[in-house]
């Protein structure tokens, strides 16, 4: 069964969380709690259409009088903005709200762990793989795995009432699995312009008004949130790989291969983030938060 793999992944995950919590308790003493913000201070996105509202509400409470950002109804009255007219997108552009991060000491520990993991293991292996397998091949392999996890996207579309997206995903899967040689070619996109529907269970939860909860930086998996981690665990059950490759080691092999292939296409991204950032941890946390908000809005 593929179930043992799922079980193992969940077990490793729980062990990590346990380890993390005890680590966090230790590190807490050192950090003096400067960074630990109340999880209730930051604006929590409250479901699909309410996000923008919640976002600007968070603004109103957080901005403070110093920032001189006029709200839409008093547009153009701020001193600074008089000559220019106020920024209609100011509420998006000047926000300080971010994802609550009460477990920052633990998350920072895992951030360091993932950093080492990347530079010492993933990057060298990924670079070697990149040398051996030409880009065309890697794109095909990526397409294959993307096509394989169609159920995650289709069901996530369906649960959000995005019936068109659901239909697109079904057609994509049928077309790509046949005309696209088992999904190695994305003919549905190239010929029909049926784009991948970038939906997952985390976005489904957000659609029903569940906020991210708190930020998690997980070992191996990287940035996530409580909500998105729950979604990720759910997605393990929607992955057809487990029902197709039931033996333990082949299953693990497929997963590792997928991960390696993906890594080989993203070498350089993390380095760029690190190079541009003054505090890479905060940079990544915020990038994740903004990235997810953007995905949820779409």
């Amino acid at each position: 069964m593929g179930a043992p793999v799922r079980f193992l992944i969940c077990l490793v995950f729980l062990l990590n969380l346990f380890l993390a919590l005890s680590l966090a308790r230790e590190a807490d003493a050192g950090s003096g709690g400067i960074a630990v913000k109340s999880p209730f201070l930051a604006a929590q996105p409250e479901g699909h259409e309410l996000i923008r509202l919640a976002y600007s509400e968070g603004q109103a409470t957080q901005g403070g009088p110093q920032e001189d950002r006029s709200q839409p109804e008093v547009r153009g009255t701020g001193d600074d903005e008089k000559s220019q007219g106020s920024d209609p997108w100011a509420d998006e552009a000047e926000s300080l709200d971010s994802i609550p991060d009460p477990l920052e000491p633990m998350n920072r520990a895992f951030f360091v762990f993932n950093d080492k993991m990347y530079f010492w293991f993933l990057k060298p292996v990924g670079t070697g793989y990149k040398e051996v397998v030409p880009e065309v091949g890697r794109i095909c392999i990526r397409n294959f795995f993307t096509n394989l996890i169609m159920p995650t996207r289709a069901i996530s579309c369906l649960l959000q009432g995005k019936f068109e997206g659901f239909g697109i995903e079904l057609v994509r899967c049928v077309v790509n699995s046949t005309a696209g040689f088992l999904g190695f070619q994305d003919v549905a996109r190239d010929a029909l312009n049926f784009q991948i529907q970038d939906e997952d269970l985390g976005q489904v939860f957000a659609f029903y008004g569940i906020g991210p909860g708190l930020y998690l930086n997980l070992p191996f998996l990287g940035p996530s949130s409580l909500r998105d981690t729950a979604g990720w665990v759910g997605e393990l059950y929607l992955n057809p790989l487990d029902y197709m490759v039931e033996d333990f080691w082949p299953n693990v092999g497929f997963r590792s291969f997928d991960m390696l292939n993906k890594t080989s296409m993203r070498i350089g991204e993390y380095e760029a983030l690190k190079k541009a950032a003054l505090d890479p941890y905060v940079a990544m946390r915020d990038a994740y938060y903004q990235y997810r908000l953007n995905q949820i809005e779409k």
Partner: protein
Amino acid sequence: MRCDRSIIVAVALLMALAVSSVSVAGEPTEDIRKTTDRIIAIVTDPGLKEADKAREKSRQIRSVVDERFNWEEMSKRTLARHWKDRTQNEKEEFIDLFGKLLERTYLDKVEGYSGEKVLYVDEKVQENYAIVGVRIVTKQETEIQVDYRLQKKGEEWLVYDISIEGVSLINNYRKQFDSIMTRSSYTGLIEKLRSKVVGEN
């Protein structure tokens, strides 16, 4: 394939026109397009390909970017509530350092250019502010969503923020800087900024 794409783009343009009644290829988009085309011309210039021309190349990109980016506005928005507490000298120093950091970040991104297609898909204008939506089609067949935020200064539209896949650069730096200032101080931030800019030049 190419023909197919252009039809799709044309249809998308028409639809955007019909829906928003805002001309897609308006002034802000034209300004972004001009700058982008000039940068692509520099990056792909065979005369600047050799390694010893790298400095000259980045100097040229820098001067093009300088004309389009409003460093002061970016600095102001990044420091947000901390901006008002700064003296004139501090402001100038910050604009200089932060501008250098942003330039480098931006240079790193554009210098890796290898024939990606740039599509101009969206434009929103409200008074003196505009958003220009761009899609970059990579060699790996993925689309990257890039949004430029602009403000009109005189006759020109100047960039004050860039979002990549919904992640606003200015927003991201604001949170980092706020976090650093909360932990240490403005002086601490400037020191970090300076060592970052100087250290990797």
